[in-house]
């Protein structure tokens, strides 16, 4: 076993220092070292998107990132999306549209949706479908997820106007 490394990052706006083996993925460190189990594991090879987090503002599969690579990085996980003011508009839209059934893909989908609306505040249905194609959901058939993202975009538009 290789020697453990100290990694210094920012997670959900808080400075975080953790100890990890070089072979450990960011997903494994989030879940098993930092006990942040909101980020889910569905396949561990970048196919399903359940472990999506934002790394320096970009959505990535945390199972494909080695934790040691995140030195100095800004990380946002599902645990950081809601604030003391309440749920994020995307989270609220997922609830109101019933855009989840089992909920295992939901944290990843919310992270991807957040990145999408950051890049494109008024996406078309096709743009939403293209952007979220890396997040598999087996329960919903995606209909209500797409509608939730549309609702969230609309709600944010109304707030900013």
């Amino acid at each position, binding site marked *: 076993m290789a020697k453990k490394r100290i990694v210094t990052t920012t997670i959900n706006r808080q400075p975080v220092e953790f100890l990890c083996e070089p072979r450990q993925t960011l997903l494994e460190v989030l879940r098993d070292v930092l006990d942040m189990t*909101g980020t889910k594991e569905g396949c561990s090879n970048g196919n399903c998107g359940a472990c999506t987090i934002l790394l320096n503002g970009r959505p990535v599969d945390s199972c494909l990132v080695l934790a040691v690579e995140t030195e100095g990085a800004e990380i946002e996980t599902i645990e950081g999306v809601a604030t003391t003011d309440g749920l994020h508009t995307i989270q609220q839209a997922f609830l109101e549209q019933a855009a989840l059934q*089992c909920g295992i893909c939901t944290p990843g989908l919310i992270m991807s949706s957040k990145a999408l609306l950051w890049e494109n505040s008024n996406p078309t249905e096709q743009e939403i479908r293209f952007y979220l194609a890396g997040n598999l959901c087996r329960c919903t058939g995606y209909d209500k997820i*797409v509608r939730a993202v549309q609702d969230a975009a609309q709600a944010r538009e109304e707030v900013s106007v």
Partner: protein
Amino acid sequence: MATVEKKTYKVIGTRPIRHDGTDKVTGRAKYGADLNLTGMLYGAILRSPHAHARIKSIDSSKAQAYPGVHAVVTHADLPEIGSKIADLGEGMFDIRDVSRNVLAADKVLYTGHAIAAVAAESIHIAEEATRLIDVEYEVLPPVLDLRRAMQADASILHEDLRTEAFGSVTDEPGPKSTNIAKHFYHEKGDLDQGFAGATTVVEREFTTATVHQGYIEPHIATALWNADGHITVWTSTQGSFAVRDQLSGLLQEPVSRIKVVPMEIGGGFGGKIVVYLQPVAALLSKKSGHPVKLVMDRADVLRATGPTPGSYMRVKIGVDADGRITAAEAEMAFEAGAFPGSPISAACMTVFACYEVPNGRVNGYDVVVSKPATQAYRAPGATHAAYAVETVIDEICEQLDIDPLEFRLNNAAQEGTRRVDGVVFSRIGMEETVEAIRNSEHWKTALEAGASLSQAGPPGSTQSDSEQKLRGRGIASGFWFNAGLKSSVAANVNLDGTVTLVEGSTDIGGSRASIAMQLAETLGITAEEVTPTVVDTDSVGYTDVTGGSRVTYATGWAAYEAARDIQRQMVERAAKIWDVTPNKVCYEEGRVIGPGDNIFTFRELAAQINKTGEPIIGRGSSDHNEPGGAFGTHCVDVEVDPETGKVDILRYTIAQDAGTAIHPSYVEGQMQGGVVQGIGWALNEEYVYNEEGVLQNASFLDYRIPTCYDVPMIDTIIVEVPNPGHPYGVRGAGEVPIVPPPAAITNAVYHAVGVRMRHLPISPPNLLHEILAKREDGKTQT
């Protein structure tokens, strides 16, 4: 029993936010893998590289000596048990087969079959240690082809297997070993006479590939075998009591010593009922003295759990000059996988269930092959059967030039229709779903320019060979029985007028809400005033699996009973306070009303409970088995690229009878989710094995389930023909939506490119092959 009039509902039919919603959108909900216990070890499993082999020896000494390893277990650590059939709600299993599946005994029967397990201080050490286990195999020829497996000279998986007969067959088990585990047979009327009366007869053969349930959360179990002999298992399962009872049988421990704690579950679709990891984690815990967590990776999920069978089907249907079915015959063989137990019996019962079939015969065979033991998958068996029947019907409609909806209305099963397997329908909504599609915007709107078929109305066909993409519309119907079975709940009235609802049905798709809403409706309070909690097997009465589309029906009924129990106690309490006899007091829409002006709201009386007597606790349990059959009719438009064979779904509308939709959003969600799984089954999904029986596509990249980008919005029409067998008219809604899609899409593809696909999936290579063959055919003829 009388069905309550829908117009009086206040909670039912509304769309409250689910009670567990916030936890699930913030990452706080605890799924199986999210549990970490003090002193916990991590387990890993050694799996077979061979599809069929005898295990000559297992040497785990090097693994046991590896630093950080605490325990190694094999099948030898499981007690010897005899053959015993267990009914787990969505299929029957022989518990001895489960024992030989969780850890292989003398033989491995598919690649990925578990052989040994290691518990160590980290997952990495455990995985390294499994590679140090030496297994000596005598490799045997695998049995990968279904029809080959049925032949007398096939390689035999289980030397002790003999064919068991069900239904009205009388054939005795033969003396010879066979791979045909079961033979089902149903007959109605006089088949020969029926076909003699037909003017049009279509007979076709079909095959379908093995497909997987594809839940996103892999299987997981954490177990603690405590020093006092009590076993606790935390796991993601569709049935905590089903896990408890299986563990009791496998480990030969009384149920009183086993507690199963259901964690949140990340999808199941029938695949998380039978146990895989739970007994192995328990054995590792017993041997190591630590809690042990076992998690599958995605490849293990695909090669060693689920799937639903590959199949062979032959269907023959005869129709008279008036377009009425005179006779129907089906012969179906399903791959059971390594052990008997495919859903062939359900296929035999559902195959012609949508129609009034005066003369019918069904033969079904359950056949073991060198693939994982198949498990239930959403309306198990019905999708296969509907694919064959509904595409044959489309061909008949074309030959007779009958509108496919008209044909279905002419032949629809109704109240009183007796199925070929003998069951007589109560009030059902098959016809209503066909009518709903006929009245839909979708059906009334013609396919857009470039379309290959006649505008609106019945789909025609195109023989066009042009380069442009071609479009077609398809129709299909489907049926699923739904299940009733047993459920228990307890409901505690709080002093602030709210109710905590304790239940045993694990919530896969919003059932906390649909159960709580029935309690709220009955008590006349709001959905938000009920707090539902799913608890472990020591904390609630026996509850069958979340499966068979039964939870909203059956656990909802238990909640209704609990509410009635609370009503009775509230009436008695008010009578005591008012000093009148209880028969002078009644419960009405959330109020307790007595003589004179005496009225308590639910909340007012709740506040008095502790001051006036004992706490009020409602109990409810149910064991009703009139779940009301569910029917659906689907309409789909596809576009086919004739140069590549790729099929795009342009538009999809599903009409389904839900009896009464308790929470319409989650009913729609079931419909949409089922349709998209059906689209995947139709167009992409299949297990690809090489000649040695090694699964070639054990990842989500290569076993490709539909993504967001592959599908359009799925339009839903909820039809409500209340189920006379439920206080609120509920019919199960979860399973039937997967039944029609492969057939509907196959029919639409035909109307686009003139090719009838008789093998699933309709993947680009498979479809292109047929398109090119047809083109060649056309050239030879001209």
